[in-house]
Structure formats: structure tokens, C-alpha cells
């Protein structure tokens, strides 16, 4: 693993152990309200804690949980997997409540908790700003509040929203992202405003997890077709835990239709495939191709970009076995780009430490 010695891990997940952990970061009204109303938690249903995918077996503590202990995270991500920086993407359910005010309070608490309990305690950690997408004005306020802390390197939202992310009412968030040079990260997870598929609720969690790939496709289509990247040339999007190999086929289809019906979206003034390669990045885990070097090589070749992939372990989720998060058979130069150069190019704030 010495080859990953300077790696930047773009997707690790600190877990809020219990709601009370956020109490120091809530104002008295909300603290009292959560207690008086008996609210148990804002933990999201995206990763059922005991499901095998949700945590590597060797990381599970006596309560079966993983990811809430700083020492465990740093031992795994920095010591065992040899990263030198890691970006914390907290998946607590700040986008779930229907009350905008409540969502704002939880988002603020999570961001302050991350800054105090994680970033302050290990200089190798960075984080995403979680935002209350229930109210765009509140979301922008939260970006402005947190962006002053240079250890926050991006803004993070869930993959399934009430409306597609390209829709114009989202754009003040992207203006804020561009203003502060913060990419927007999209992570599996749902606000549960829509069913997990466009045809309703699936029976199995297995299907829920599969359905995120469709949400990523819809979000990219929306961001491109609505013109978000034309409006904000400095705006970048990072797809976390999205899988990778669905992208070329999706871009072929979208770009073909664009050639046919581009009069409908005249602000899309070049091929969607080119726009996505310029503005969008994807993390490497889960890597959704068989671990056969020939197939991996061809699938990577289909991306037609050496800049588009970013290293990520997805700690503590159990995506890969053993210690090798990188797919097999990649040329060394490309490996180095994915591990180090591409993350540095994507996150301006990481370059301040380089």
C-alpha cells in the first residue's frame, strides 16, 4: 500500500453516535424540543446499521456499529490505507425533516459537531458542509456560515430530492458554491420526497441501493439540461459512491438526444459528454465492474478522461474486500492521478495545504 502513501480519500463517513452528541451544538429551544417531543434520532434509513454493506465487519464495535470513533477512522483511513487527507461526509438525516426550521437547526449542529469533534482533533481531516435543502435561503446561509472555515471543502446533498437538482430554484446554492470555490457533492441517500424508483417503492433494500445509480443519472441529466454548468462555469459536481461504469452509456444516450433535440435547450451549447467531463467527478468506490483487468481497462477507457475519477475508501461501508480500494490493472500514472492529482485539482481548498 506504499503506492497510496499520498492519497486523498474523498469519501469517509463519520457517524453521529446519538442525538445527544449534537446537544452542545443546538440552541436551548431545539434541545428542549427534541427532548420534550421524544425525537429519537435523525439518523437516515439509507444504510440500515446491521446490513452488511453498512460497515466492514472488522470495524463493528460491541454494539455492531462503526464510524463514530475518531481513532477508528484515522487508524483505518490514514494508518492502514495510507491516505494523507480525508474528506468527512456525514450522512446524518438533515434533509429528512419536513420542518425547514428543524432542518436548519440539525444542519448547523452537524456542521459544528464535525468541526469541533473531528476537524479540530485531527489536522488531516476535511469535511463537507451539510445543508437544509428544505429551504434554499437557509441552505445558502449555512454555506456562507461554514465556508469561512477553510477545512470545509465542499457542499453535500442527497441523491434523491423532491425536485431534480438542475431546476433553477436550486441555483442560489450553486452561486454560493462557485463563489467559495466549493464543489457540490451528491451522495446516495434520499429525502424520501419521492419513491425510490420512478415506478414506486421496491420490496428489497437491495433494490433501494441499486436505485441510486438511476438517481445519479437523473441528476446529471438535469444539471446539464437546465444549464447549471453554462450559468456557473466554475461550478463542479462530485458524485460520491455513485458507481462509475454507468456513466459512458448514459452520456452516449444523452449526447445523442442532445444532437436530435438541442433546440429545446439552446443554452446547452456543446455535447453533454464534454460538459460532464469538464465539470463532474466520480469517486472510485464502489467500482462497478468485474475485477478482471481486461474489463476494467475497457470500462475505464470508455470514460475518455484520466481526470474524472477520485480515490475514496467509503469508510466504514463495506465495498471492497481486503485493503485494495483501487480496481486492478490500472497503469501507475493513472493510479497516481486518481489517488492524488485529481482530488487536488478538484478541491481548491486542499491545494492550500499541498
Amino acid at each position, binding site marked *: 500500500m506504499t503506492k497510496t502513501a499520498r492519497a486523498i480519500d474523498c469519501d469517509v463517513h463519520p457517524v453521529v453516535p446519538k442525538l445527544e452528541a449534537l446537544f452542545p451544538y443546538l440552541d436551548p429551544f431545539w434541545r428542549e424540543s427534541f427532548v420534550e417531543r421524544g425525537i429519537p434520532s435523525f439518523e437516515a434509513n439509507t444504510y440500515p446499521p446491521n446490513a*452488511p*454493506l453498512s460497515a466492514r465487519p472488522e470495524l463493528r464495535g460491541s454494539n455492531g456499529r462503526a464510524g463514530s470513533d475518531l481513532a477508528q477512522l484515522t487508524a483505518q483511513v490514514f494508518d492502514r490505507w495510507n491516505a494523507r487527507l480525508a474528506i468527512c461526509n456525514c450522512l446524518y438525516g438533515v434533509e429528512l425533516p419536513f420542518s425547514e426550521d428543524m432542518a436548519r437547526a440539525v444542519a448547523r449542529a452537524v456542521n459544528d459537531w464535525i468541526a469541533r469533534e473531528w476537524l479540530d482533533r485531527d489536522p488531516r481531516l476535511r469535511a463537507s458542509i451539510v445543508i437544509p435543502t428544505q429551504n434554499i435561503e437557509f441552505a445558502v446561509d449555512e454555506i456562507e456560515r461554514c465556508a469561512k472555515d477553510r477545512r470545509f471543502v465542499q457542499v453535500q446533498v442527497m441523491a*434523491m*430530492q*423532491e*425536485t*431534480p*437538482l438542475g431546476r433553477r430554484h436550486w441555483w442560489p446554492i450553486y452561486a454560493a458554491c462557485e463563489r467559495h470555490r466549493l464543489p457540490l457533492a451528491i451522495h446516495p441517500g*434520499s429525502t424520501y*420526497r*419521492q*419513491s*425510490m*424508483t*420512478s*415506478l*414506486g417503492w*421496491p*420490496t*428489497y*433494500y*437491495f*433494490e433501494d*441501493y*441499486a*436505485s441510486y*445509480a*438511476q*438517481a445519479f*443519472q*437523473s441528476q446529471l*441529466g*438535469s444539471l446539464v*439540461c*437546465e444549464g447549471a454548468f453554462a450559468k456557473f462555469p466554475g461550478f463542479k459536481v462530485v458524485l460520491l459512491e455513485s*458507481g462509475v*461504469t*454507468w456513466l*459512458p*452509456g*448514459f452520456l452516449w*444516450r*444523452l*449526447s*445523442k*438526444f*442532445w444532437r*436530435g*433535440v*438541442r*433546440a*429545446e*435547450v439552446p443554452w446547452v451549447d456543446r455535447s453533454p459528454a464534454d460538459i460532464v467531463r469538464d465539470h463532474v467527478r466520480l469517486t472510485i468506490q*464502489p467500482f*462497478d465492474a468485474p475485477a478482471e483487468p481486461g474489463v476494467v481497462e*475497457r470500462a475505464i477507457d*470508455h470514460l*475518455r478522461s484520466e481526470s474524472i475519477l477520485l480515490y475514496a475508501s467509503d469508510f466504514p461501508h*463495506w*465495498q471492497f474486500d481486503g485493503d485494495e480500494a483501487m480496481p486492478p490493472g490500472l497503469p501507475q500514472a493513472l493510479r497516481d492521478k486518481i489517488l492524488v492529482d485529481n482530488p487536488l485539482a478538484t478541491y481548491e481548498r486542499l491545494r492550500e495545504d499541498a
Partner: protein
Amino acid sequence: MNIELRQPDVAQKSRLKIIDVDIHPKSSVEDLRPYLSNRWWDHLHTYGSRQRQGFLKGFPYPKSQPQASRRDSWPPGGGLPASDLDFMKKQYLDFYPIEYAIMNPLSPTGQGDQNDEFSAAMAFAANEFQIEGWNRRDSRLLASVVVPYEDGEASRTEIRRRAGDRRFAHVLLRSRTCELMGKKRYWPIYEAAIEAGLPVGVHVFGTSGRPASNTGWPSFYIEDMTEHAACCQAQVVSLITEGVFERYPELKIVMIEAGFGWMPSLGWRLDKTWKRLKDEVPHLRKAPSEYLRQHIWVSTQPMEEAEEPEHLIDMMDWVGWDHIMFSTDYPHWDFDDPFVALPPTLDDKRRAQIFSGNARALYRLD
């Protein structure tokens, strides 16, 4: 360069036969009148079609051109595109070496209507007209068993009515069903299709009554079109995960007009996730990608266009050369011309498989 590419195609015109698995002859509601009872004819005129969307006429995502059809497909004698057999022969059936073409009527068929009984009556009429109005006049035109798919038992009745009639090629559903296709409410359709020895074709479009994406309503027609691939991914995942192919090992599904660039990746993703979550789906006895490979066929149009042609060949290789069937989508605007649609580097064997061999085997058209 163009000349080099087109010369072999001209030679193929005389050599190749084409079985086109997706065309859209158009009927009018008046065409269906002889096959509708007075009750449902009156219902149609009084209450119209109620398709879980808001527009009295037209579509939530307006098409790029009238009737979503080629500008040159309007018959000179009047009427809608693909409503005039003589003109369709001249422009399509005789112009290309069409051996068979499978009709997938999209409207008026009553499919997806909020009223199941009306839907069943319309499906019956649409099926009668495919035979009386089209197949009897040109036997190259094969019919689909249009079913009122939101009512499993009514669909079974309609499939049984057509069982054994070789003029019907497959059972037809639209892709945007009210619930995922793996759910039990749709199983009578699969049982009846197997009983009748028919594949089940799933043609894109329809209105599920839900947002067109799992993250809400997109704004544009271009997104509506790309969403079909996502929709069909969800359907395939549901069919596999619910154990439909374990329960019905003879079931064959044809995804029509949904593309295929998403299929290999979907199989890989499911296999990877299955490795972790096997215990939730103990009824699956093999890797999800194996069900995909064995039970799902695809049509070509709109033909994927890779930025580098050899990438498309990779993709077809991963999908499986024996499960890809040619389609034109005549008379729609994104029609794929048989003379130029397939990648020029395909060898003759694969070209023949895609143009007719695979469809001949699946639909038993010997």
C-alpha cells in the same frame, strides 16, 4: 469516407433480411369503433382517456415535432404518419428488405388508463384492429398482444384469447407501469405469456402517475427521453430481485427503445451489491447479471452512439450478441435507417444476428 462505408450497405440491401421489432402503425379511435361495445364507445367520447397526467391533448413533455414523427412520413393522401399502408410500403416496408415488422401500438390502446375495465376494452379493440386493419392486408406486419397491464387478470384473459394465433409476436406493456414490474400484481401477465409461448415486450413511455425520475419531475423532453433508460433499469432490477425469473424460468423480456448502454453496468452493480446483501434475497440462486443475460433482450433503436466506435462494440459484446435485435421505430423522428444504423465495423455474422437471426429465434419465425 462516406462512399466506402455505404457501398457494403448497398450490397447488403439485396442480401440481408430485416426483422424490425419496433414499428408504430397508427390507428384512429374510429378504426377501433367496430370492436368496442356501445358502452365503452360512449365512455370514450364522454370521458375520454385518463392517463394519470394533466393534458387533455398532447403530452406532459411536448415532442420535438408533430406526432414525434419524421417530417417526410406524413402520407401525401392525408392522415397521420404510418396510417396509410400503401405509403408505408413505399417508404418503409418495400424500400428496405423487411421480412417482418412487429407493430407496437402506443395509442389509442387504453393502456395505463385509470379505468381498468375501459383499458381492457380498448386493448381488445386495438388487438382486433392490428389483425383486421394491418396484418390481413400485409402479413409482414406482426401484432402485439396489447394488454391492460394494470389489471393482471384482465391481461391474462386477453393473452389467452390470442394464444396460439401466430400473427401475434409478443405481449406488449409500456415501461411506465404504476408499480414495479416485479410486483405480484403483474405476475398473471407473465404466467399467461409463458402459457401462450410469447415473449413480453416492454416499450418505453406510458405514465406511471409518479414523477418521471426518482428525484422528481424533470423539465424537458430531452430528459423525458433519457429517463426511459433509468426507468427500464428499475424494471429489470425489480424483475430480477423479486425472483420473477426463478419462478418463471421460461419468461423472456424484450426491452424496446430503451437502449442497452446501461445493461452491462447494471449487471455488474447488482452482482457487487448481491455479494454483500445475499441474505436479504435468498430466493436468488445465481448472480443477478446471469438472470439479466438470460432473460432480457433489447432492441437497437435509438442506436447508442459512442464517441469512439470500438467502445460500442465492447458494449454490445458485454450485452451479448444473441440478445440484440434490430428496430427502426418507424415512423418516429429518431428512426434508425437500416442501411446506416449499425456500426460499420460489425462483421457479417453479427450483422445478420442483429438484423434478423436473434428475432427469428426469439419469436420462432421460421
